[in-house]
């Protein structure tokens, strides 16, 4: 499963690193590193992490490979 994190949004709350430690790890106090193509077995953990992210920075590919969960990264144009 493919995913991407909008690191402009990410503020290092580290919720994802607790909920899906195989996919998301903190690098130092605040920087996030993640596997953009996580193992399918991690899907439940990744979805939980995406849902728990306080700034909704995690975009996850849906199971059918088409639509996705978040709209992170959308522009903030008024």
């Amino acid at each position: 499963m493919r995913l991407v994190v909008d690191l402009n949004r990410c503020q290092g709350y580290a919720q994802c690193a607790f909920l899906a430690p195989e996919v998301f790890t903190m690098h130092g106090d605040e920087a996030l590193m993640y596997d953009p193509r996580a193992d399918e077995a991690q899907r439940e953990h990744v979805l939980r992490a995406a849902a728990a992210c306080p700034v909704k920075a995690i975009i996850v590919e849906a199971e059918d490979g088409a639509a996705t969960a978040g709209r992170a990264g959308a522009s903030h144009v008024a």
Partner: protein
Amino acid sequence: MSLDGSLEKFRREGRIVVVGASLAGLRAAETLREEGFAGTLTMIGDEPYEPYDRPPLSKQVLLGRVPADHTALPPRRALDAQWRLGVAATGLDVAQKRVQLADGDAVEYDRLLITTGVRARPWPHELEADLDGVFVLRTTDDAAQLHRRLSAGPRRVLVIGAGFTGSEIASACRERGLEVTVAERGAAPLVGALGGVVGEVAANMQREAGVDLRCGVTVTGLEGDPAGRLRCAHLSDGSTVEAEVAVVCLGATRNTEWLASSGLGAGPRGIACDAGCRAFDVRGIVTDDVFVAGDVARSPHPLFGYQFLSLEHWGNAIAQAETAAHNMISASSDRRPHIWTPSFWSAQFGVNIKSVGVPPMADEIMVVQGSLAERRFTAVYGHQGRVIAAVTFDQAKWLEFYQQQIERAAPFPPEFGTVDRRPEEAHPVPAEFPDPSLPSHGPTVTLSGHSPIDRRISFTPLHA
């Protein structure tokens, strides 16, 4: 037929071609479909891969935590597009509305979006650049090759240029236990993007991590052994660095050559477009059917004196692509401007660096929270008495507040109180940006003036 009628027809059965199949191209295509474009969509990309994410290439991938081919971007929706991957666009005929392709084919469009981005600026001496062991880092192939070479355990890696990419590579090398020398033309790493005050923090970070950092020098030549493998580099201070790997991190160059005879206002600074993402032609007249987004675009920004900004930023690629796509299929009264506030991040030496606004425009800097010495701080940049940018080291949570200050043109020095302010550092000092007329690896934000047809600049590496 009324104009409204023709717009409806275009949205129903028109032809849109997107040249450039990376982050901006993908997000634009998704937005077109999201907003109801039902016509033909063609995606053209010179790389043979589906759109992938580049930021991990200099971080997770070099560290060996993630394979280089793991960064394909998750699609937000089904696209129903025709993909022409591995084929570069080589020419554009605006009058005939036709894109020429490298394989001899041509694709016709009703509206065109250009998202061809940038490429790594190569080492200027071709023979030296061809030496085994000399790399650049921009694409997934670059990252795979560099990772393979780093895994072989070279005795020393030379990083040429300490901008963000160079600094991240140096960080990854140290984390892997590799000896690394960084040669930077400026007074400190990141100096072009963040100025000398923050640059000094970055320099200390590198040295403490064991980087052999050499500032104020240029690499004058790369020397190979008889087998054509890199052996050493000569520096402008007369010294020699023995290295088996050199990574050339001299910034990026914009992919506009294919537009040279198109009549568009395209040059080394990118393709000039209006705030609605419509490309200018060389006469300074805005085109109706050619749109631009992402790293290759430069567009006027009201927050920054309507200067044309070139932004090599991940977030800009998405925001501008979404605006361009929206405008491509909207009536002119429904169009919206691209007024995204520049933002980017970098992770290096275990520190999360984030920036908002346009730091290189600043005269002064002030540490408003935390401390430079602790490498955990928020610094605000001022230009003519207003807040123009802010940078955090491991204090990302405060950045949004400062973004609001920038967007409101709040006064500088800031008049409000903040938590964790240290009186000894909290006063404005010169931000120490290098003279922008001197060549360097360049900041990731470029203020490129107002002319839509600026073709004057050329990059000339300095040699001693």
